């Protein structure tokens, strides 16, 4: 059984090829980028995994030997793979997704009117061992009031908080930076409705502070659900979760601006109001998890898309209004023509 050691090409286990209708992509889960490849190379890398170039030349014809070698050399020089004589030592990554949090992420919306009792909400989220929270303010909130609210995070198990704030003309950029420095759990702040130039961040400053400023006014939850390469999340937790679960709604809980508990604020189903319903009672209702296991592989068009394991989904706004398996409304990509529709996502209307 002793076989001579042959040199074969292998992708690193965290560089995973995904096939689309017309082309494929290598998802680099360590570096967080992707690399487009033709479908023929996908086939070579998967169906003929760990074959020698000589063997592949027998399959595809010896005239293609140089091209196959060039494919491998390019993938190697781009840092996606390596040559080895012992591929058996390099197993694939197990794609089982396991998290100790019953809810991994939560959204709470504020729109004037009711001011949620965040102390109570945070302690309820702690029961789930929830790690990430997004707070979205469509109306003005004073930074003082916000800072008081964020002090409730101090002993919580949440590790990251993301903020969407309406710009207050009385605030300077230092005020926002101070807020972020004061509360270590804040990972990023999006400031909307900023018409004035009073809040000019230099470009590199933005990246360092994790603060982004936009002119557009975000008035309600309907701004959400846009799909674009800039929202791709190329990492192992996301990629593995997407194998069996929905990449937006799985283990998510939300409280909308009226206090209604939903899977996401944009979803039609409400599971009670936070006034009189505990979050744990809400998620116990059978249909709360209705969308959790809708993978991209089950969604029309997305199932043929090469980006399906790195892109976030949206089940709230679909192309077909009564089809829960329809492609996200605000996705402009067509995996058959390989074209991105440049229309602003929020101007697209469902059929």
């Amino acid at each position: 059984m002793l076989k001579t050691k042959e040199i074969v090409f292998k992708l690193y286990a965290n560089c995973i090829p995904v096939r689309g209708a017309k082309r494929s992509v290598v998802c680099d889960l360590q570096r967080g980028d992707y690399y487009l490849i033709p479908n023929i190379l996908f086939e070579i890398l998967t169906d003929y995994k760990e074959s020698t170039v000589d063997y592949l030349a027998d399959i595809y014809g010896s005239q293609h030997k140089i091209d196959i070698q060039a494919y491998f050399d390019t993938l190697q020089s781009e840092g996606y793979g390596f040559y080895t004589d012992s591929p058996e030592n390099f197993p694939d990554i197990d794609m089982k997704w396991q998290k100790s949090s019953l809810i991994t992420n939560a959204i709470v919306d504020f729109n004037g009117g009711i001011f949620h009792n965040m102390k109570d909400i945070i302690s309820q989220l702690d029961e789930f061992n929830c790690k990430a929270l997004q707070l979205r303010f469509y109306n003005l909130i004073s930074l003082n009031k916000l800072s008081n609210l964020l002090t409730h995070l101090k002993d919580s198990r949440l590790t990251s908080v993301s903020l969407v704030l309406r710009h207050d003309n009385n605030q300077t950029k230092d005020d926002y930076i101070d807020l972020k420095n004061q509360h270590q759990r804040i990972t990023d702040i999006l400031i909307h409705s900023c018409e004035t130039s009073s809040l000019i961040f230099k470009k590199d400053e933005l990246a360092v502070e994790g603060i982004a400023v936009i002119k557009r006014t975000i008035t309600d939850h309907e701004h959400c659900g846009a799909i674009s390469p800039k929202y791709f999340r190329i990492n192992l937790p996301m990629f593995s979760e997407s194998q069996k679960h929905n990449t937006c709604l799985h283990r998510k809980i939300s409280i909308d601006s009226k206090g209604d508990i939903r899977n996401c604020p944009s979803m039609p189903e409400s599971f009670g109001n936070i006034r009189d319903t505990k979050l744990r009672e809400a998620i116990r209702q059978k249909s709360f998890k209705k969308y959790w296991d809708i993978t991209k592989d089950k969604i029309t068009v997305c199932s043929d898309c090469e980006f399906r394991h790195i892109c976030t989904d949206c089940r709230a706004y679909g192309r077909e209004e009564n089809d829960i398996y329809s492609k996200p409304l605000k996705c402009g990509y067509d995996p058959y023509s390989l074209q991105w529709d440049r229309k602003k996502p929020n101007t697209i209307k469902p059929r």
Partner: protein
Amino acid sequence: MRPNFHHYNTEMILILSQNGLEPTTNEVIDWLDYFNANYIRINGDDILQNARYSIGMENMIIRLEGVDIHIDEINAVWFRRWTSTNFSEYLDFEGDSRLKQGINEYLKTEYQGASRAFFSLLQNKFWLTDVRKSRMEKYNVLKLASSCGLYVPDTLICNNKDAIKNFSALHNGKIITKPISEVTLFPIDNSSFVPYTTQIEVGEINYERFHPLQIQEAIEKQYEIRAFFILGNIYSMAIFSQDDEKTKQDFRCYNTEFPNRHVPYKLPREIEQNITSLMGLIGLNCGSIDLIKATDDRYIFLEINPVGQFGMTSHPCNYNLEKEVAELLIHEDKR
């Protein structure tokens, strides 16, 4: 810390850890909560600050954050780490700096003695990493590894230039030095010096005799391997810190722009068996083992870290070791 405690339960996991920068402990605790396990966490610093305790000949009382810890309830102990206190600043007063240093040294020794007494009362429990085995004599471990059939780098501990010269000649001038004992950080201003593995040129040595020094043959590597051993199971990861030998000539410079690849690895069965016998010989049921895959295809054993951060292996390879540790502690606790 959130003590999770029931009075009439006789199952209790004790976690011995340290304050701050301990993501691994926190992740295991998240899983213990997920499985509704009972546990209590004591950080080494608690013995100095927060806890009230009395350790008798047969029993002890520890009260931490209003909770009494009863030794009879504890079945499983996870020794993760113990203290992060810097004793040189522990007691500060005006006066002679040598006196201050002497007193602080003494206080540190007394604290360590108290800690050992505490551990000693727990010695009949199940330990994931027995604290008494957790201090490694690296030189000894190399000898034991070699006796278990593992290749180890040829090693010399010496204090003179002639010895290095002879050793260097044996290894074609390719030698390195690294600490004989634990790596220590020397803080300076806002950064620190680390005595790291360094290549040695015999010609550059200016002294005939010096402080004890460890020299090893330099081993050209294909990649490094970090293997996490837990009760006979081994989870390995390859680190491409050096590009593959076959491509090194062409792509070396290019590849340094990218972070090293961290990918799952499966050691040959024979090497896994050697590691298992070595761990048995030392009496460790858990630890991280560093190896090198040399360019001549040999696996070279470097060292064992009994309390290494296994998150660095678990996360990139999706091994979920934090969950496995939690399940194992629960299993041993219920026995």
